[in-house]
């Protein structure tokens, strides 16, 4: 069948300079926390967007403490929304907190439809919070945004998570996508791991108690917890340099 969505995707992303997809092989490693924080701090110096493509487990809105009202004059004109200068889209803007039980080929179509219809404004960088895994959700954005996309891999420092993350790094290499670096989450600085596969570790982020407590209080942890900015600084600076160089 003639694939015409690639033209819509190309048009929707035409004003976006670079796309950085934050990926993880396994779920539950803190990918959304890292992706949202990266976008949140980059917006201080760059025109930045955040796209939540984790269609089953979208959660970036929770980190941003954003509650959509789901009453639009027109969705196409209302999205992407702006949150304190961050340009943002998530499935929560379409379906609220309902479960999204899409299966099989519908999953692929969902990703393509989201990539097609959200018209991004002029952006220096768009951060994508990718779904966990190594399937369609990762391969499709990489295929359709091949000219602009690079990735960051997030993992826990335990051997099992590292194994899966290494396989993801291999896959990304095989499909021709550059991996900028790896982030070790829930990781003490004393942990002696400097590479995931052949990708260098650019940040080690420990468990930060303030994040959990601020979320429980309905507060944005990137504002409420100054130490988060410090721990994410290496990866934020790394991406900022990539975009501005």
């Amino acid at each position, binding site marked *: 069948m003639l694939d015409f969505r690639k033209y819509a995707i190309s048009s929707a992303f035409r004003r976006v300079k670079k796309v950085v997809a934050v990926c993880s092989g396994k779920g539950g490693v803190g990918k959304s926390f890292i992706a949202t924080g990266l976008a949140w701090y980059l917006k201080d110096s760059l025109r930045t967007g955040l796209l939540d493509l984790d269609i089953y487990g979208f959660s970036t809105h929770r980190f941003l403490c954003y509650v959509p009202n789901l*009453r639009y004059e027109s969705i196409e004109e209302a999205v992407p929304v702006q949150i304190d200068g961050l340009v943002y889209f998530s499935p929560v803007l379409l379906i609220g907190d309902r479960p999204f039980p899409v299966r099989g080929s519908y999953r692929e179509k969902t990703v393509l439809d989201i990539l097609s*219809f959200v018209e991004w404004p002029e952006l220096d960088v768009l951060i994508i919070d990718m779904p966990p895994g190594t399937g369609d959700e990762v391969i499709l954005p990489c295929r359709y945004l091949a000219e602009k996309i690079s990735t960051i891999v997030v993992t826990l420092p335990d051997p099992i998570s590292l194994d899966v993350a290494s396989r993801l790094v291999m896959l990304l290499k095989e499909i021709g996508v550059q991996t900028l670096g790896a982030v070790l989450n829930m990781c003490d600085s004393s942990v002696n791991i400097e590479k995931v596969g052949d990708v260098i570790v650019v940040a080690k982020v420990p468990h930060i108690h303030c994040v959990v407590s601020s979320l429980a209080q309905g507060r944005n942890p990137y504002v409420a917890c100054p130490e988060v900015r410090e721990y994410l600084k290496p990866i934020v600076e790394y991406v900022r340099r990539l975009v501005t160089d």
Partner: protein
Amino acid sequence: MHEWSLAYSIVSALLDLLREGKVKKIRKVVIEVGKLVQIDLDIFRQALQEVAGLHNLQDVEFEIQEVETRFRCSRCGYVWTWRDVLNKLAEEIQDPELRKTCLESIHLVPAAVFAYARCPACGSPDYEVIEGFDVKIGKIVGEV
């Protein structure tokens, strides 16, 4: 707006076919539109003609075929249509603004129907769309 974006994408795909020499001339394009997508067919037809005209494809005939959307429950086998979904949503979502958002979400991302609709017979979220899911090019008639 979505209709114009679709028209632009379809015409771009046709232009690539011509550019790549896969066809020499395109006479007719048959486009199948599932009812689920809620495309405004008049706007879509107009958009196709205008965008095609801008690219010297004004002689191409666009035939738009609307396809009934039918669903089948994987649990109980019940089959239903988009009309049934609309009736059910009208019952379940009383707030007209929320209902508008629901329908527009499905218009833009047809798979959003899986978030909003369940099997009318047994309530299962596990069902398939047998036909009429999205917009696709059914046939291209031309010279190779």
